[in-house]
């Protein structure tokens, strides 16, 4: 840096700033006047903005601004607009029977999407986000239904629950504790367990299974069907397939006959409105197993 007055560049006749890098000097070219005006304009704009819009942070919140802008209020109004746009479909769903929803493809798509959202919030805790279920909580994707897989049956189950004391219309079935209450002898239970295992296609003692067949008809067929095909009206699950609510295999079946475990599901008609329950029914039905 030169200590004297900054030198004048020979070629352009402009004063230099005195800064020099590797022999390259910086010209001190004056800024255009309009640039200055724009600079002032931005300052005025900034002041105006601070008055008009929320700007200064305070201990609780911030200054509101005279225009009263609020992103939260914008959200509320946008949600209201979205709700108004949905109301056409919601009204249609409210007015129609569950089975009729499927007749209108657009309405069905809306119901599935709405049901999907409601399922994630209310049902996924027990049935899983993909409705794949857990031990004791049925998988809703498959084609076995304890209480029936038609739209109406699914709707009723969701609305009133299963073994849900607060709802009079709830689905109720109670399997007797054949062992614990000494309704059957130990070897009889063994035989039935082996028979059930054999009809479900898992490993079993065939001699015991033969004995168990007769005992099954006498003691179990009323609820589970003659060949273990299940009775949906009574909530007796099918036993002649690979799908188990708790677990398959002789040991697990024996345990269940001895002292049965029962699941419980709340009825949702007291928490959710009817439109949501209908949408849930359509969604669950759409998962692939609906009948």
């Amino acid at each position, binding site marked *: 840096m030169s200590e004297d007055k900054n030198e004048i560049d020979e070629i352009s006749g402009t004063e230099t700033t005195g800064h020099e890098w590797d022999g390259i000097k910086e010209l001190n070219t*004056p800024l255009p006047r309009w*640039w200055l005006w724009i600079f002032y304009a931005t300052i005025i704009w900034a002041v105006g903005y601070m008055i008009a819009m929320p700007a200064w942070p305070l201990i609780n919140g911030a200054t509101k601004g005279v225009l009263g802008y609020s992103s939260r209020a914008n959200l509320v109004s946008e949600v209201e607009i979205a709700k108004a746009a949905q109301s056409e479909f919601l009204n249609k769903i409210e007015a129609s029977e569950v089975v009729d929803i499927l007749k209108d493809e657009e309405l069905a798509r809306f119901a*599935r999407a709405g049901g999907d959202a409601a399922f994630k919030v209310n049902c996924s805790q027990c049935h*899983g986000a*993909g409705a794949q279920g857990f031990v004791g909580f049925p998988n809703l994707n*498959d*084609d076995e239904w304890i209480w029936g897989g038609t739209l109406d049956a699914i709707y009723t189950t969701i609305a009133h629950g299963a073994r849900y004391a607060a709802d009079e219309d709830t689905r109720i079935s109670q399997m007797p504790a054949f062992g614990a209450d000494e309704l059957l002898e130990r070897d009889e239970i063994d035989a039935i367990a082996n028979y059930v295992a054999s009809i479900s296609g898992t490993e079993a003692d065939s001699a015991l299974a033969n004995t168990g067949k007769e005992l099954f008809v006498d003691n179990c067929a009323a609820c589970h069907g003659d060949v273990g095909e299940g009775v949906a009206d009574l909530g007796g699950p099918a036993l002649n*397939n690979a799908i188990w609510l708790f677990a398959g295999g002789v040991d697990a079946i024996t345990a269940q006959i001895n002292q049965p475990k029962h699941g419980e599901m709340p009825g949702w008609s007291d928490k959710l409105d009817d439109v949501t329950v209908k949408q849930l029914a359509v969604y669950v039905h*759409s998962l692939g197993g609906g009948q």
Partner: protein
Amino acid sequence: MAKNPKENKQEKIVLYEARKNIFPKDVKGNFRRFKWFWLVLTIGVYIFTPWIRWDRGPYASDQFLLIDLANRKFFFANIEIWPQEFYYVTGMLIMAGVGLFLITSILGRAWCGYSCPQTVFTDMFIWVERKIEGDRNARLKLEKGAWTFEKISKFSLKYLIWLIISILTGAAFISYFAEAPQLAKDLITLQAAPVAYITIAILTATTFIFAGFMREQMCIYMCPWPRIQGAMLDENSLTVTYNDWRGEPRTKNQKKLKAAGDLVGDCVDCDACVAVCPTGIDIRDGQQIECITCGLCIDACDNVMEKLGLEKGLISYTTLKDYTQNLALASAMNKDEKKQILAPHHANHNVLMDNRTIVPSKVRDSKTNKLFERFKYPNWKLFFSPRNILYFTIWGAVGIGMLVVLSLRNPLDMNVLHDRNPLYVALSDGTIRNGYNIKILNMVPQPQRVELTLEGLPNAKLSLVNQSNEIFESLILDLPPDEVLPVRVYITYDPKELEEVRTNFKMIVTYLSNERTTSAVTFFEIPAK
């Protein structure tokens, strides 16, 4: 820090400088004619392109060029581009970029001088100004004069016409984004969307201010392109050049001095080149960032040379290489003319001219009064420099590549997403079911019927949502025109037939009308055995 206080006081430092108004004089000539032609052509294309109609049938717009932001589609003649095909736009931008490099490499700042909207609109606004207020001298007088009624009315009329041009510019811009005839109707009847009016207002303001008042300052202070172009020019690029080797020493009374036996250059210092310059510079100071190479000073100077009976081209498009060579030919070492002249490829004028003087006797034959023939002028060979050929090759390759890809483009596309949760569902009969979300893209403006088939899973059972009782081998689907059809399907299969946990297979979609087909590979998952 021994500063001299006297010196500091002497010169007041100017921090901000007001713009010096420029009053370009009208000029006639080849470049001016070409600029008018180019102005009408570019503005015409800009204004009228949205109004060209192009029949695409009943399901799509009939606008030749339409950027449909609402539906995320771009229409150009028979080409229809969807958002996921944005690489076509990338290709076009690469072509535009490389094309500019090519033009710059050959013709220097030709973009700035002829095609840049800033130049074109400024030119148009200056034309309006000239029609209303008169040419340079009249305008200078008007500017200095008092605010008479005449001045106010002329200024008002000028601003009004500028404003109308600006509004039309804004309206033309938004016409690319909507149906132009309908939009025009809506705009006039005040039915158009607020965003349309806001966009027009913004573009009106920018056009009015930039072309009316900012003018050359846009190029000098704001635009990055002159800097980039400056870096791209080389000694073979054409630039507007004052050929001082034949112009100097310049003099105002050439004839008198010549008669007196003095050696004089061709430049009569008439300032015609300065008067016509739209950026207000003196080209005789050499190449400068303000120069947009519009060529108007060439026209002005050529007219003067013609009157004087001298060769045209005292100011001309020339390359630095030729210019340097000519300068060397026309100059001599001070005091000793016989010394070898400097190497002609010497690029820097100042280095070259250090200790040298232009000698008019080396320029012009005193007997015939003609320029010697040894001087160099740009010729067609310039266009075939390796750099230009490289740029052209890249430009052409991108263009041909895009054309090939566009001509092979399949208007039918599909995406398949296998369910993640659950990956598979075990059914009561021991079979396994997988779920898939399929999106079929029908990128033509006609409804189409397609068949969805599977390859690699023989006898697989297909079913649809809420219809698990109906089993299909293949599906017939109706695709709406220019839309994506989402389909959710289930596939059921016996796991005993499969060896791997994951079996890849193909989903194929085929137009029933013309057999065009597309496919996607996905997988079928079964539990580990």
